């Protein structure tokens, strides 16, 4: 066991845990933040993705000991009111069926748009192909990312003015 002070969704969280514990289980079991999902445990499905300093990573493969000072953002902290452009676009396109994989899809999409506010279809495929959706909502996910991209690029260009 070891003590950690983690920066999660803008707050400092203290905990005493086995250093090898993946962030997925730290979030779900120790911090009561179950929005991040378990799907495979081997970084093949993307359901557990969180942002580590803004980059989408599978939290099932991220031991708590490796986090250090890096900021962790989870689906619960992506926006204050659930109004991140990606979340809004997901609702606009009514993407979800069962909904289980969608937190991971949204976190991956949000990280993509942060890096590339005008992704092509190929960019979206490349960024999103680590996320499995058994319900098959891929088309709507792609449409939603394009809608969100419009909002992201409009708002960033207006900021520049």
């Amino acid at each position, binding site marked *: 066991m070891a003590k950690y002070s983690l920066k999660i969704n803008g707050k400092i969280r203290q905990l005493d845990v086995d250093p090898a514990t993946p962030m997925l289980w730290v979030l779900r079991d120790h911090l009561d933040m*179950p929005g991040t999902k378990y799907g495979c445990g081997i970084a093949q499905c993307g359901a557990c993705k969180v942002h580590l300093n803004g980059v989408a990573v599978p939290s099932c493969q991220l031991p708590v000991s490796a986090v250090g000072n890096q900021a962790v953002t989870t689906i619960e902290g992506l926006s204050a009111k659930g109004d991140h452009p990606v979340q809004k676009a997901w609702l606009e396109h009514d993407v*979800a069926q069962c909904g289980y994989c969608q937190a991971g899809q949204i976190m991956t999409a949000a990280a993509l748009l942060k890096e590339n506010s005008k992704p092509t279809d190929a960019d979206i495929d490349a960024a999103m192909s680590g996320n499995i959706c*058994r319900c098959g909502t891929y088309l709507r996910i792609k449409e939603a990312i394009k809608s969100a991209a419009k909002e992201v690029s409009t708002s960033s260009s207006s900021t520049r003015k």
Partner: protein
Amino acid sequence: MNTTKTTYDRRSFLKSSLLAGGGMMLSVSWLSSAKAADKLQALNLPEQWVQLNGYIQITPDNVIKLICPNPEFGQNVMTSLPMMVAEELDADWKNVVVEMGPHDNARLGPQFTGGSNSVRMYWKPLREAGAAARQMLCEAAAQTWSVPVGEVTTKAGVLHHASGKSAKYGEMASKAATLVVPKGMKLKAPKDFTIVRHSKKNVEGHKIVTGKPLFGLDYRADGMLIAMIQHPPGFGMKLKSFDASQMIKMPGIKDVFTLKLYPDGFEQGGFDTRTFNELLVVVGKTTWEVMNARKKLKVQWEPMGDVKDTMTGRSGKREVTVPGELETTSAQLDKMQEYASKAAQQLRKDGDPETAFKNAAQVIERTYNAPFLAHNCMEPMNFFAHVTDEKAVVAGPLQAPGWAEPTLSKLLNLPADKIEIQMTRMGGGFGRRAYSQYMYEAALISKKVKAPVKLMYTREDDMTYGIYRPMYTATYRAALDANKNLIGFHVKGGGIPEHAIHANRFPAGAVDNYLAESWEIPSNITIGAFRAPRSNFNAAAEQSFLDEVAEAMGKDPIEFRLDLLKKAKASPVGKNNEYDADRYASVLTLVRDKSGWNKPGNEKYHRGVAAYFCHNSYAAHVVDIVTRDGEPYVERVFSAMDCGIVVNPDAARNMVQGAVVDGIGNAFYGALTHKNGAAEQSNFHNYRMIRHNEAPKKIEVHFVENDLDPTGLGEPPFPPVFGAVANALYKNKGKRYYNQPFKPELDKRI
């Protein structure tokens, strides 16, 4: 998370439903007695929900809460079922909140999610519930305003009278709840719908995109422990001995023990399928600790030998022998070939197929194979249970709580009214969660450790446990005369351990000489319903075969099917034909017209078509393949559906699109194979699932417009995808593909 505290005594509902009489409609008992309403009013809380019947609650400040009776696994019933209530209630959808109901079959009906039945089953009762509540509100207003009830009108949650009086539903709800529930309500004509047929967003959309705890795996309770089960490494194996001395000392580990699921001679219900009966259980504080400790278990396994099970069901009690053999896929294929050449059970015979084949100028014979498939719901199996001597509270993802409850009651030796089942949102189901053994396991573990417990399967546990789509084969034969007319049709299908043949489906009824036969090979690999059971193979095989027959006859594949359907309509052959030839034809003509079949502008595509009827709805797809990076890629799909009235159109389109993606994925990649009893795939690194870059760019969904009562959509669009993909693949590669999944053969790995 659904943690609703119900404010009623369940037994009183059972009583009132008995008073109401029998039948399904009446098992949906109305909270009609003045007594029950008095009880609610006696609470005298301004914010108290006033319950008008089992499905409808209204607050004085006009929030309308509609109860969804059926478990939600992504088919969107939490939105579509309440839409039906709201339609007849004339509610303002903006003021509607939806809550998952408690498990209470007496009050809320069968509560079964499966067989594409939710919308179909609840179409009448839910609208009647809405209409009855609306009438009671009108009556309350009429009494209050001293006007005839016939003069009270409603619109969007407001009561009106020509005198200018008006009141929101919430203002009249308390009074309405004291009135007698009217029966035999006249329901709206489809042309008057303002909510049904108008797309509504998923009522849980916001919770999903913000990561709220909705699913079974998210369930949490004070003092809750985590449990996992180590199951044998292969089918046909059982526990011999184990040594937990090392791992029991590991941090967070509470207990390691073995537990029997069903006692000897236990009468299993039809959906009590389990693969392994003796459980090796590890219980600890946190998931990670239990996962790690389990790896340190030293376990010895041994072959289980033949096992006898006692099953009960509609056909009565029967003993079943489960063979103990450790199975391997190549040997299974050999065995299927052997069985296919033996005499089989006749399922249906029309005319004289023997003579037709004897006299045929040409016989086409083709054999199709498909592997076991794992459901791979994104949320692995799990369940929460807190069992004490007095009662049991269980919560989790389950498609059929009503089927599970009697077994749980027997296993725990607790009466049903001491068992509370809470239905969480399911991270997928696809049939897998109709089999509740993981709930029983959780309950027995909780009882043993005397603590609240969440049982969790890892992905590996989930994928290698069984309850798969069976392994199937079928040989089709068509007899053509010298003028290339189809004069005979023969299908002989088998499977491990079940066959897939639907003997009364198309083209039965359209061919004068017809024969359907089947055989089965027992196995210890357990199987269960998988999205459109049996149809998911039939449609693949039969629709590929029909494509080949049409080609041999020199006919367009759509026109060929339409000709057969014309015949099935004009002079149906045989009895018990399950499909409506007109509706079947309507999806084919719709998909033909919308896809521009045989029309210029589609030259870049290799096109395949298939259609199928199952679970009361009709589906047809045109699949367009292109070659991308040297490989066939389904770039575009046109779908046509006839499911009667489309309750929630945009969500319905989503469902069809998803089924198409799922079908393409399983057609190309889905396979679960075995070696010496062990599943050879255990997680997504070796069980390939379709991914973003492999999904089509466009899936255009069209619905046949009619006013027929709605039927389901969860399953019907899925099966014909396989056939349409196979037929398009033939155009793309110039070669027919008979063995699913197609990808290994495309890669020349087999």
